[in-house]
């Protein structure tokens, strides 16, 4: 399972980086989304994957009796999914607006600011 997740993470990072380096703005957004998913999988993987019980202490016990799954990585991933969801929504609107105003989706054409103005 770990090996599979590690490979998946690597594939997502690689695909994300590749897409970010493309010239189309839409592919840039797709790249960022893929990269973000890769990061989430990485956190999940590095929080150790354990087969165990949910981390809830029974009322009669003072501490964990069994092996339990670490809840923190899941909380982290949940937070980061929510944040990146918001950012991606903003990004899509921004790109749509930029495409309408600039009339191009080629990142190499977005260089009017580098010229002297």
């Amino acid at each position: 399972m770990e090996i599979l997740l590690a490979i998946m993470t690597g594939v997502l990072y690689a695909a994300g980086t590749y897409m970010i380096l493309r010239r189309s703005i839409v592919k840039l957004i797709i790249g960022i989304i893929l990269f973000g998913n890769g990061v989430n999988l990485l956190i999940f993987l590095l929080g150790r994957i354990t087969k165990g019980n949910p981390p809830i202490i029974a009322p009669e016990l003072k501490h964990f009796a069994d092996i339990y799954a670490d809840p923190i990585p899941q909380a982290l991933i949940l937070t980061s999914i929510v944040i990146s969801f918001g950012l991606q929504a903003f990004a899509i609107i921004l790109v749509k607006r930029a495409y309408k105003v600039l009339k191009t989706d080629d990142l190499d054409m977005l260089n009017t600011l580098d010229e002297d103005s």
Partner: protein
Amino acid sequence: MSENIITYPLIVHLFFSIVLMFFWNKVKVQKIVTIIGNFVALGVAIAVFIFTWQYGTHVVNAGNWEAPYGIVFVGDMLSATLILLTAIAGLSVSIFSTVSIINARLRFGFFSVYHFLLLGLNGAFLTGDMFNLYVWFEIIIISSFVLISIGGEKNQLEGAVKYFTLNFFGSLIFLTGLGVIYGLTGTLNMADIAVKIQHVNNQVIVDVCAVLFLTAFAIKSAVFPLNFWLPASYHTPPSAVSAIFAGLLTKVGVYALIRMMTLIFPQDPFLMNLLLVLAVLTIISGSFGAIIQNNIRKVFSFLIICHIGFMIGGLGVFNVMALTGVIFYLIHDIIVKTNLFLIGGVIYRLKATTNMKMIGGLYKSYPKLSLLIIVVLFSLVGVPPLSGFWPKISLFLSSYNTGNYWFLGALILGSFITLVVIAKIWSEAFWKNQPELKVNKRFIFFDKLYPIQKWQFVTPIVLLAIFSLYIGFGAQHIQALSERIAEDLYNSQNYIDAVLKP
């Protein structure tokens, strides 16, 4: 007073940003409320500063969860100082933005988002938890995306796409580093990480993790190979927005680097050398970039990069004297860089352009304003006894004593080129005769404004200039403050003890 006082700056900004949402279309009310809000925030920030100065580092556990398990807010001297500076810069920029930004833009919740930005900044300075730092960073960048793209002009959107991509990418790298450090140490509390990371067997992975964090924060603070988004985007939004970005957003990256380098990875020779190399390259690329530009706001953007190099390099030298220099420079830089972009806004209002070639004769027509501006420009260069001079003594001496001659050379070169650039701006925009100006009849020039509006333009600059003068002439106070912060940072055990309460 209880320790909870350090969370009040957050509550103030959150409260006012929510209140402002109720006045969505009433721009006039919003202007008054935001200025009141920033005055309240300034008062609270002063209270926090005095409290921290008297009682030292103190910790608030969110929800009363004990330190390594819950999220902590840590108010040490560095945080308190930065909160105070944020409040000063925030107040000045809010006064400036009430008049410099047109109402059509303000109507889209500008001030509400502005308070969210300040909330995020204060939170990032206060938090003692790595993941919480990430969340504050996200709040900062989300607000900054809105501020940079509000108005939706062609230039702005083009800058916003670049700004968005790089900053979002930086956050993802930060998150990767977080994942790795959680896997290594099993904790997210910065103090706890600092203790546990020494016992990690595989120190190579620790270095990899450090480089991931370094990359993320370097993107935020525009360190050399990752700095090209900054001059491509900072001159596109209205001046008030770029002022707050220039003064505080890049400095949050520097703050995060300082925290990381002093607390989590202290005295790591690999990182120190890497930072020194990056600092030299940053100074060179920033200063040479500034020389060839003709747009005043672009020149200032490149100068931000140049001076980030000073701080990064001081961090790379890493002894008490160098850290003193870094902190002093940080204090000076926040005030001066904010002011520079406000000045850029005033020049735009005077001449309808910020291209040096097309403006001139400012000194002839506005002598008093020009004298005000020259004080700020000289503070930036570091003409003694103004504010930029004093931190450089510490930086020079410490890099000379430790034999970092490359960094020393870059410091001198950077300072010299800053002087050349400022001289160029002065001779082009202020002393040269006014060339033929293409007048757009609809543009509202400075002279056509009501007196109260003129004062709204000039007051923030005066406020910040007075503060710059105080940093220069009252340097012994700031030096004492910086030394105290540097001692705290260098002996990070104090911070760890305060958080974990052994």
